[in-house]
């Protein structure tokens, strides 16, 4: 990743950027959006403007209650040290986008990868939000993922390398949201391993021969 990484071509839906700015996305989906924003100046600017809409809406709200309610209490607390220290900036890991550094430490290749199939390894990230799985995927160079469908929606963001599937080519920063009905088969670029963030809101179901074989045992 360098300043010369080309701008992404596949962006989140504008309505999802508004959800993110408004704060209504569950944390795993907000993480996928923030990871895209790391790569995408255009969507960062859109989110900044959508936050300005929030500021304008807040400023225009009719007042509820008097402005002096709680003032004396808060003034008395100003000199107290913060109960929770302001989070320090996470250490820089060159190939991990900023928003992910809260969840994983170290460089991408050195993470505790768990091998799932010959061509796929995963690292689970913990978000404590029930109903979502958040993982990093490493697809071996030139390999195809087993064809799979989802019971829910799967959102992936490429971190490094790239892949192609029925929907097109996906490079660093590109977002793909696949709906439950579509079976797709990503194929990693031949020249390097492909790393992605993947957020699913229900377990993935494999289809086809390999899927029949693996499905009862493998959750990925």
């Amino acid at each position, binding site marked *: 990743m360098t300043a010369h990484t080309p701008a992404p071509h596949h962006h989140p839906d504008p309505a999802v950027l508004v959800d993110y700015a408004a704060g*209504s996305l569950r944390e795993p989906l907000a993480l996928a959006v923030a990871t895209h924003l790391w790569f995408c100046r255009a969507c960062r600017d859109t989110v900044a403007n959508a936050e300005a809409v929030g500021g304008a809406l807040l400023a225009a709200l009719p007042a509820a209650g008097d402005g002096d309610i709680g003032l004396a209490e808060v003034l008395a607390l100003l000199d107290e040290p913060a109960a929770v220290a302001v989070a320090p*900036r996470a250490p820089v890991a060159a190939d991990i986008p900023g928003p992910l550094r809260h969840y994983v430490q170290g460089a991408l290749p050195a993470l505790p990868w768990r091998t799932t199939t010959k061509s796929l390894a995963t690292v689970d990230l913990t978000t404590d939000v029930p109903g979502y799985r958040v993982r990093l995927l490493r697809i071996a160079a030139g390999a195809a993922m087993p064809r799979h469908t989802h019971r829910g929606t799967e959102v992936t963001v490429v971190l490094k390398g790239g892949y192609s599937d029925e929907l097109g080519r996906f490079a660093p920063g590109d977002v793909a949201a696949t709906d439950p009905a579509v079976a797709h088969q990503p194929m990693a670029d031949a020249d390097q391993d492909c790393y992605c963030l993947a957020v699913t809101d229900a377990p993935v179901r494999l289809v086809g021969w390999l899927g029949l074989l693996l499905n009862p045992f493998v959750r990925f």
Partner: protein
Amino acid sequence: MATASASAPSASPTQDDLAFWMAAIATRQDRAAFAALFRHFTPRLRAFLQRAGAAGAAADDVVQDVMLTVWRLASRYDPSRATVSTWVFTIARNRRIDQVRRERHPEVDPDDVELIDPADSAEQQVSAVQDEARIRNAMAGLPPEQAEILRRAYFDDLPHTAIAEQTGLPLGTVKSRIRLALARLRLTYDQP
């Protein structure tokens, strides 16, 4: 002229007044400026939190927490990036997520040296401040059904998919109203 000793509940402060108070807090921990900011924002913050379902005392707790965060992070406020109202909105949004849902709001740190294609500060300064003034003006002219969808999106803590379920509107209609509002406010940037 903005004054930090604004104890009289006179006309609404301007964005310049708010920025003046923020600077006073950041540079010399000015309590009178903080009190003025508190009186301006807390009735609106309370309304904001009550709409998202935080009742009475719970809303007041989050309001206090937001204002303490404003005090503690005052030196991080950057007027070239956002107006005070927008900055306070993002703090309130994040505190609401933290206290009501017990979740984080993952974000990009605009100062991270590794950020891809960062904005340079001069062009950012021009765009952030001008855009906010323009957005405020344009919002007054939004058709009511678009304004209502935006109010629901920002105040009700519901993603657009849930707004569709709640209102009974088709998802496509909700999406298109949001897109139309974004286009009308000229919020979206060209995506390559």
